[in-house]
């Protein structure tokens, strides 16, 4: 497919063709670009996990026996590990999503702000995830 050009050699965009996302490889990895693709990847992970979450609820509609099988599957250590990763994605995507919404409102767009909010989102997601799992395993209940 040869590209159409005008008289001065500029490529004429076919109006039916949507512009493509820039290729990822041409950038040097930076906190900004890495976090941007991470938002997308966590979005995909969350989507897959949401189908699992839905399946868990659907299992409940089939009665006590099916639901207890679902609960058993969730209790395996490998499932717990996957859930740990999933909630980390959830906390990251939640916080970074809020960061996105601030940008959409025109706030926090200066490069220094983008950098610190990026690190803030990453560290907060990690901390929240650890606190969440400590609570889930009754760690704080044992303390008091």
């Amino acid at each position, binding site marked *: 497919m040869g590209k159409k050009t005008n008289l001065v050699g500029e490529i004429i965009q076919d109006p039916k063709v949507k512009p493509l*996302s820039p290729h990822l490889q041409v950038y040097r990895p930076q906190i900004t670009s890495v976090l941007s693709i991470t938002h997308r990847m966590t979005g995909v992970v969350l989507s897959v996990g949401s189908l699992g979450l839905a399946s868990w609820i659907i299992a409940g*509609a089939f009665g006590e026996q099916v639901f207890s099988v679902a*609960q058993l599957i969730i209790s395996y250590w490998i499932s717990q590990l996957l859930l740990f990763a999933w909630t980390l994605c959830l906390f990251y995507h939640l916080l970074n999503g809020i960061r996105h919404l601030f940008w959409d409102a025109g706030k926090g767009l200066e490069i220094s702000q983008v950098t610190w909010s990026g690190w803030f989102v990453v560290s907060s997601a990690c901390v929240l995830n650890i606190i*969440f799992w400590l609570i889930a395993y009754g760690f704080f209940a044992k303390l008091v």
Partner: protein
Amino acid sequence: MAREGVSHWWYQRLTAVALAPLTLWFVWSTIQLMGVDLAGFRAWLSGPVNLVLSTLFVCTLFYHMKLGIQVIIEDYVHDHVLNSLGLIATNIVSVVFCVLTVVSIFVIVFGS
């Protein structure tokens, strides 16, 4: 086509704004639901607030997910046939799972 893109963008933000508080509520709820049996789950789900928020969460979640996955497919899948198939599959999976889940919630609460 251009108009569609703009509303798509808006619905992605709108669902994100709704999901932010709903997700916090969901995270909090899962802690209480760790290892429950069905009776416990039913008791929790039968609280009117939990019933309404669960339903809202599931619907918003699957709508947000559908929009998000479709943007990704549009960005990366350039083969025309695969692109269309991907978009259709995303639609079907989202709608089917959303409906099944909401129906299940109501079966658990109101079923015998």
